[in-house]
């Protein structure tokens, strides 16, 4: 009868290159393990394939045409309407709401405050090592430090001897430890920075993806019938030192094929690195006996093109940039409650090749949207689901433009429950 806690994990620029989405190459055992106890949406889409507009959209439950944020330069409460956010709604319902890492996009679009104090009970946490992300910390073949796109690092070598996502995981675990004995339920949002560029990750993860195993995208050329307006010229990649040195022609490139494979290798390595962080966080949830009373929602803000259509990065309407991973673990609904110290999320080392293939959890095929997160999380937590928005809804503080996805959580338990125990 106690209200369920919520752990909301959002991973920056993560496309569904995960084992639980059928990817045969990428090693993501901890996210796959979460999926095995969750309802996984196979066809979930962002409303705009770029950070701030997507995040403001799903955190307010409004589409970009209502938030009127298509770039990075306005704060919806000033520019469009005083729309409530998911954390704000939970906070008003008595939850302790906390933000770690990149949940709102930093800067103007979240009022330079991650929308605190509206959304958060305590000041949002940002890892101190984030400030080194885009400076010269990548050791090149010349032994010098560069601001590269491809940036596998020796963590002992980097400033502060740590990386932002490691710090975020540590902070989130500390908050979980504090909340374990708290009288009030919590809504903890953890935003991981990788695999957003630069691909700056512990270099050992490269070993999981030997270059000889890395192929090009299945369709690495600009399609003949693609309207020029639809094409995104991936200008952010071109500004990185190692890419700039290739003198790639604008706007269509192409990137030399060996470098294309290196980009793909580093993206996959970054995904496995984030998987280890998610694994540490979830195993802490287990160890603190919180898994039986905490909803875990896992998603990303948009996808990323890895050379498909001759494109890289996000900034388009293609499926590879708008389709996202989306799954919900709901104790007692998508999985039976852990019995007597049973562990649902023991940490799995992606380097451990013996870790067995994960069984799949429940899956939903229908197309769904990130704008549905607000009503769905509210409903799953037993809170009143915000009403549908009128059109237009600029004057309405609390309403939703997305569907409540709870109808996907009605399972025929008799048949399924027995399989769960197995």
């Amino acid at each position, binding site marked *: 009868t106690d209200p369920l806690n919520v752990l909301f994990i959002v991973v920056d620029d993560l496309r569904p290159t995960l084992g639980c989405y059928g990817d045969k190459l990428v090693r993501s055992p901890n996210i796959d393990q979460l999926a095995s106890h969750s309802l996984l949406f196979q066809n979930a889409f962002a409303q705009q394939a770029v950070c701030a507009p997507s995040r403001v959209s799903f955190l307010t439950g409004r589409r970009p045409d209502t938030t009127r944020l298509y770039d*990075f330069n306005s704060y919806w409460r000033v520019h469009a309407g005083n729309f409530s956010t998911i954390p704000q709604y939970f906070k008003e319902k008595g939850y302790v709401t906390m933000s770690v890492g990149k949940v709102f996009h930093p800067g103007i679009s979240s009022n330079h405050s991650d929308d605190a104090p509206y959304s958060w009970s305590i000041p949002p946490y940002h890892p101190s090592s984030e400030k080194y992300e885009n400076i010269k910390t990548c050791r090149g073949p010349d032994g010098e430090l560069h601001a590269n796109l491809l940036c596998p690092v020796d963590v002992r070598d980097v400033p502060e001897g740590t990386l932002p996502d490691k710090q975020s995981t540590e902070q989130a675990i500390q908050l979980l430890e504090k909340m374990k004995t708290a009288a009030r339920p919590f809504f903890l949002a953890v935003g991981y920075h990788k695999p957003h560029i630069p691909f700056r990750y512990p270099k050992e993860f490269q070993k999981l993806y030997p270059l000889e195993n890395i192929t090009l995208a299945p369709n690495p050329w600009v399609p003949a*019938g693609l309207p020029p307006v*639809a094409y995104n010229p991936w*200008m952010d990649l071109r500004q990185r030192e190692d890419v700039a040195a290739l003198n790639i022609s604008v706007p269509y490139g192409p990137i030399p094929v060996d470098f294309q494979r290196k980009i793909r290798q580093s993206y996959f390595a970054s995904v496995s690195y984030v998987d280890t962080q998610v694994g540490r966080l979830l195993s802490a949830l287990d160890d603190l006996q919180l898994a039986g009373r905490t909803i875990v929602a896992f998603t990303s803000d948009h996808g990323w093109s890895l050379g498909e259509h001759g494109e890289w990065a996000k*900034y388009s309407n293609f499926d590879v940039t708008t389709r996202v991973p989306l799954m919900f673990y709901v104790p007692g609904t998508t999985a039976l409650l852990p019995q007597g110290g049973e562990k649902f999320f023991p940490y799995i080392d992606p380097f451990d090749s013996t870790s067995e293939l994960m069984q799949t959890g429940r899956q939903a095929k229908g197309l769904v949207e990130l704008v549905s997160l607000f009503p769905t999380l509210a409903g799953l937590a037993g809170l009143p689901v915000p009403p549908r928005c009128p059109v237009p809804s600029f004057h309405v503080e609390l309403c939703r433009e997305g569907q409540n996805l709870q109808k996907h959580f009605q399972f025929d338990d008799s048949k399924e429950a027995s399989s769960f125990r197995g």
Partner: protein
Amino acid sequence: NPRESIAYSQYPRPADSPQWNSDKPSLKDIKIMGYSIRTIDYRYTVWVSFNPEEFLANFSDVHAGELYFVDSDPLQDHNVYNDSLGGGRPSAWMLP
């Protein structure tokens, strides 16, 4: 029924051809908006004129279109918009 589900996405552009700010145009520079409607069967996108002062899209002014059928073209490489719609105005039921 998965067949009834629909997902909408959109993306802004400053011009019909790729240029330095095509990836991330500032609001004042947005002249075109690409609206996508997705179903289990197809992906349909129209790139229409957009007025950043009024926040208004003009669906009568279609700059370009894309149509991909999921079963026959899952990687979205063969745009059949012009073939199948004759480049005419999008049908009303396809508009967000």
